[in-house]
């Protein structure tokens, strides 16, 4: 089928099948995460997921054999263009689609792919990621959750932390220690149902008042042996691949990209003008400096995208993006809160504008940007060592 035909067919199908309500901007609260206890903001959202899932277009480039769309990259590009053209919402947000699926395709057995990929594509199973532990943050490879071979099953004991939405997830993909005598070479990658006896989750209240992350306690959790993905003690390679997926998805999403109040408008309204300029000259200078930094960052993202499209190698820019995206978002929210004055430091109630309350929460939440998915310090280490070739201490 020619691309032109594909485009025409796709456009026609979308025209018929994408409900009008799904062609509006997606608010955070209306995101569809799927899963056994999926909730939908409305029937159109349910319908949209069903229709897209049926065609495998939630995972357009995955093989049709597992329920994916089976599209070639060029076809997928057309599909994405057509979706953007009508402003269609993503039918499904899913760690299964973004993270677990891609590594399963690469490392999983045929049986595993058939077992799990179709449900990911249809949004029937919601996954979460068991990586960090209280004692293993930046130094992830020091993880200690023990996984013992008990003949016909594994027995898992330990604790995971910073598991996004573990309390709402159906299954977990998880790094465990299967050899205590080796560091990186003693890690394996397993998956299990969150209903397995011995799995307990507890949401972590953040400084922003939200609880998107959980602690997960694993006590004598029995995991069937066919739920080991990849080789025994071969989990670190999968982990590294996954971290790359995570960092890319974090920095291209560019923290809180489209969020909320415009800084300059807020400043003009809140601070006022003097001699035609923002009355607070110090704040004005810092806003100008920030906006130029932000713009330089966006131009860099665009340059990298253009170079990547032209077949250039942009590996040296990858750790930069995560670092700079975090810094830019944090600066923006600090300035926004400062611009709003005490009005930007409310917690709740009628005394504050809802946009201002949202800004406060986002500001607090943004402090995690430079920690989650690889701290800024780790990213600077990576730039120094891998990009600039600076030596390790001896």
């Amino acid at each position, binding site marked *: 089928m020619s691309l032109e035909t594909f485009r025409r067919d796709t456009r026609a199908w979308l025209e018929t099948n994408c409900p009008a309500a799904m062609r509006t901007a997606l608010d955070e609260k209306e995101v569809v995460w799927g899963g056994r206890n999926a909730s939908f903001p409305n029937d159109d959202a349910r319908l949209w997921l069903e229709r897209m899932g049926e065609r495998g277009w939630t995972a357009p480039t995955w093989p049709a054999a597992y329920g994916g769309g089976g599209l070639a990259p060029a076809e997928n590009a057309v599909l994405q263009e057509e979706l953007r053209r009508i402003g269609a919402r993503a039918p499904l947000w899913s760690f299964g689609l973004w993270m677990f699926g891609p590594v399963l395709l690469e490392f999983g057995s045929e049986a595993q792919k058939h077992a799990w990929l179709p449900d990911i594509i249809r949004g029937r199973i919601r996954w979460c990621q068991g990586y960090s532990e209280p004692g293993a943050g930046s130094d992830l490879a020091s993880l200690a959750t023990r996984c013992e071979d008990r003949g016909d099953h594994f027995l898992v004991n330990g604790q995971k932390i910073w598991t996004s939405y573990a309390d709402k997830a159906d299954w977990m993909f998880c790094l465990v220690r299967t050899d205590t005598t080796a560091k990186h070479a003693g890690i394996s990658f397993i998956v299990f149902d969150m209903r397995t006896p011995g799995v307990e989750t507890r949401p*972590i209240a953040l400084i922003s008042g939200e609880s998107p992350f959980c602690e997960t306690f694993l006590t004598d959790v029995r995991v069937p042996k066919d739920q080991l993905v990849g080789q025994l003690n071969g989990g670190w390679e999968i982990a590294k691949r996954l971290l790359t997926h995570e960092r890319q998805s974090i920095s291209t999403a560019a923290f809180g990209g489209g969020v909320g109040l415009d800084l300059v408008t807020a400043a003009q309204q809140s601070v006022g003008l003097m001699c035609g300029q923002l009355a607070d000259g110090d704040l004005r200078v810092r806003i100008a400096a920030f906006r130029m930094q932000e713009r330089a960052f966006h131009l860099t993202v665009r340059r990298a995208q253009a170079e990547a499209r032209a077949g250039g190698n942009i590996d040296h820019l990858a750790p930069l993006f995560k670092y700079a995206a975090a810094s830019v978002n944090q600066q923006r929210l600090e300035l926004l809160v400062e611009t709003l004055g*005490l009005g930007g430091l409310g917690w709740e109630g009628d005394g504050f504008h809802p946009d201002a309350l949202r800004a406060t929460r986002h500001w*607090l939440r943004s402090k995690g940007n430079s920690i989650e998915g690889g701290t800024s310090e780790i990213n600077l280490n990576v730039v120094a060592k891998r990009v600039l070739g600076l030596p390790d201490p001896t």
Partner: protein
Amino acid sequence: MTRPLTDDQRLLQDSAREFFAERAPVKALRADRAAGRPFDPALWQEIAALGFAGAAVPEAYGGSGMGWRSLGLVLEAAGRTLVASPLLQSALVGVAAIEALGSDAQRAAWLPAIAAGEMTTALGLDEGAHHAPSRIAMRAVREPGGWRLEGQKRFVPDGATASHLLIAALAAPTPGAPESLSVFCVAGSADGLVRKPLAMADSRGMADLDLTAVRVADDAVLGSVGEAATALEGVLDTARIGLAAEMLGAADALFALTLDHLKTRRQFGQPIGAFQSLQHRAARMFVDLELTRSCVLAALDALDDAAGVSTSVRSAAAQGASVASVASVASLASLASLAKARAGDTLHLVSNEAVQLHGGVGMTDAYDAGLYLKRARVLETLYGTAGWHRDRSARLDGY
């Protein structure tokens, strides 16, 4: 200026730190937050009983007469554990306002009550979300035997709980005369006064105030109408300096918490505090803290010196204003801005670094770093941000 602590001051500092660490640690703030109250009234009675509420009140008025620097040390100690008591608004701002503006009768009536912890005050100054003492719209209209207040105040610290509100308003001493800033003492229970508590991110008590035809008698004017404007700047500078002391305490305690984490948290086989980039960041925070400490202490000293000067100037008023006292007023304003700006920048840095250096745990509500972060921004904003004070500092220096 910049005198070492006296033995008495050292003793006071130790006992204040000990008291707050014992009776009002950060977990007391958590308890107040959970209970939905801005602070614990019982704690305030203990604070007053220790003489802290009257630290800056002269002995003649029932205070302990220890001076501003001593009160600053108490505020610093309170800042260490994020105590949100009436200390700042009553013992510092209220006392400063009554001292600077009030008549002898008002001093005699109110200062002992504040020192005893019976009367608490809240200064209603700003009418927007930013500190802007030159943008007051609240009006006081002359009526027979008194004044009628009309207007709004926003984000008044302790505004929902203080027994008395000190309201800055524009008023003319005689009909047709130019209006200038004056301060009125309004009972919290006054007719026409509506107080709307605000739930702030740092759980400290603030309120918006609506004043509709609030009537007060002549003796509610601090001093007399038309004479407050200049002296009010001095009161605000006192507030800024005391606030800077509280901020220094918060920054200092949070830095200690962070250092402790750097020494105990292990990753990659060693305490993370062994990594040189973190060592240098910690060292730079230390430098900032020490520089801030110098500014705060010098500013507190200048307050004590100015108190001395103003007493002597008052008695020598007939000979006209002395050049020295004018210079010292300018330098007090400058020092106040220096202390507030430096404390603001330092607390800003330390609070952000604290969360970052703690990693994930710093993001959790269960850990104290986030409470310091939220309080930090409120304190940074009150009575002028660092940027506002840099700007003021440049103006004071004529550029």
